[in-house]
């Protein structure tokens, strides 16, 4: 069974990739399995400077999902490049650097650095984070800002595929997909978390210290599949399907909706070896579905 996927030039040995923020810098999972078994992973979202993230509580379980308000805690570019990369270069798996900035300049500066960093196979721009220059609304919910930041990064990212991770908190995701494609993106990641919240009724206040958080897990899968479907209709660049993947069936669901590969997030917390497990189960399911490769199923649910 051919599980290989060429995702915008990134060679994945299977279509299963660890999602940003749920996979650390990869090494956390080494105690559970051999990282070379998986297609690749996206790093925890990187910023120029280290960030300590939000106060606690940062997480909260919800029906078939969870809320997180980690606040983009990360070690920062320098430490990532000097402490994590040397180890990651030795592992035969695709390393995709997820990154963000608080300002347009920070995005561009970091994109340029990551583009030059040896051992990084692709860049994934997280545009769901607050734009401090624009009063804190997410970059990725304003179409003009999205275009500007993608174009800005595109101009400096010359060696590696540039993937844009879309925010689902918009009315028309297809419009954003087209804007990213038009601004030079090589691929899309669909979707980031939905904004949600929960209340601590005993203490009469939001559970999360940050008030709102990102909803992830199986609960959001129907929304994610729909958005992948819409993006597939809208653009020609490949799409990572993300949101609640928990079984080989779910992987195929995203692929048939139009994803070239999928990312697994929250379920890594529940079953840390879920990605290699899915890689093992996938071929059998594909055979049962009469498919000889992953690629022949991409978007088939859209019909002829």
């Amino acid at each position, binding site marked *: 069974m051919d599980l290989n996927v060429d995702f915008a030039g990134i060679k994945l040995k299977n279509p299963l990739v660890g999602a940003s923020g749920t996979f650390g810098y990869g090494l956390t*999972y080494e105690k559970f399995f051999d990282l070379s078994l998986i297609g690749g992973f996206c790093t925890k979202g990187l910023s120029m400077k280290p960030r*300590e993230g939000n106060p*606690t509580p940062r997480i909260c379980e919800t029906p078939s999902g*969870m809320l*997180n308000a980690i606040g983009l*805690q990360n070690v920062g570019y320098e430490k990532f490049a000097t402490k994590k990369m040397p180890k990651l270069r030795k592992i035969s798996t695709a390393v995709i650097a997820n990154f963000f900035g608080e300002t347009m300049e920070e995005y561009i500066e970091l994109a340029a650095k990551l583009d030059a960093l040896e051992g990084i196979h692709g860049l994934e721009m997280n545009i769901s984070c607050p734009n401090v220059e624009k009063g804190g609304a997410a970059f990725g919910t304003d179409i003009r800002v999205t275009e500007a930041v993608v174009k800005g990064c595109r101009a400096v990212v010359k060696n590696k595929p540039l993937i844009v991770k879309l925010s689902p908190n918009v009315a028309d995701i297809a419009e954003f997909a087209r804007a990213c494609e038009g601004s030079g993106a090589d691929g899309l990641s669909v979707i980031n978390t939905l904004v949600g919240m929960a209340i601590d009724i005993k203490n009469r206040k939001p559970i999360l210290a940050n008030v709102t958080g990102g909803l992830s897990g199986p609960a959001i899968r129907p929304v994610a599949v729909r958005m992948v479907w819409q993006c597939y209709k809208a653009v020609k660049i490949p799409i990572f399907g993300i949101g609640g993947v928990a079984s080989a069936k779910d992987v195929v669901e995203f692929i048939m909706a139009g994803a070239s590969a999928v990312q697994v997030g929250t379920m*890594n917390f*529940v079953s*840390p070896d879920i990605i290699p497990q899915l890689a093992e189960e996938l071929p059998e399911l594909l055979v049962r579905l009469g498919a000889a490769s992953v690629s022949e199923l991409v978007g088939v649910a859209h019909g002829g």
Partner: protein
Amino acid sequence: MQCTVTSIQSLAAGFFHLSLTPEKPLGPITPGQFVMIRCGESTDPLLRRPMSVADFEADGSRLGLLVQIAGRGTGTISRLDKGDQLDLIGPFGQGYSVPPEARTIVIVAGGTGVAPFMTLTPTLVSQGKDVHVLLGARTKELLLMEEWFLHAGASLHVATDDGSKGFDGLVTALMMERLDHMEEPPDMALACGPAGMMRAVAALAEHNNIPCQVSLENSMACGFGACLGCVAHVRGEKRYVTVCRKGPVFDSREVLI
């Protein structure tokens, strides 16, 4: 890792002890470490639940959990029968670490906080240390594992909030009283229980200049350092540490409780 339930025993209303045999030994365990258990196969509840390892074999070929029914997850677990399977991963985190030179140890445990001390106490006693165990509970019926600690050769003191047995009041008040009684301050205090109790024990220990280790029960999504959800504030710094990886047991002066 699939484990077989070899026994499940009610201890008091809402508390039970679970004995488990993993498919394969989990490997070495330190008291204070925990496992993450799956509560059913459904995605609701979704996340695993952290549970301290209570009694165990050194190689992790058998382990016991002391569980309080707190909600749906633990409720589901409480309905397991002998012979059923339970899915867990671990052990994770850093347990208690008592330096060889520490001679007198005070252990303070509330509710299921006795769990990590079930194996630690006899070990410390067998090393010739003088171990004082202070157990607290709301009422007499909820004092867990008294017998166990009696047999372990520690000097045992109990406190109940309603005075139905032993000291009448909080276990931290009992700790204060014991400290007054001791000729020399103990070399070390080890504590496990609710956050409020941890704060009080830490304050008391600090006040009396006793090195103290506490176990934190922050909410955890993963248990192994991947989600960054469980962090605690490092005291005096603008920096967080993961409770699941650098803890759950910390030196009480290291983190904000």
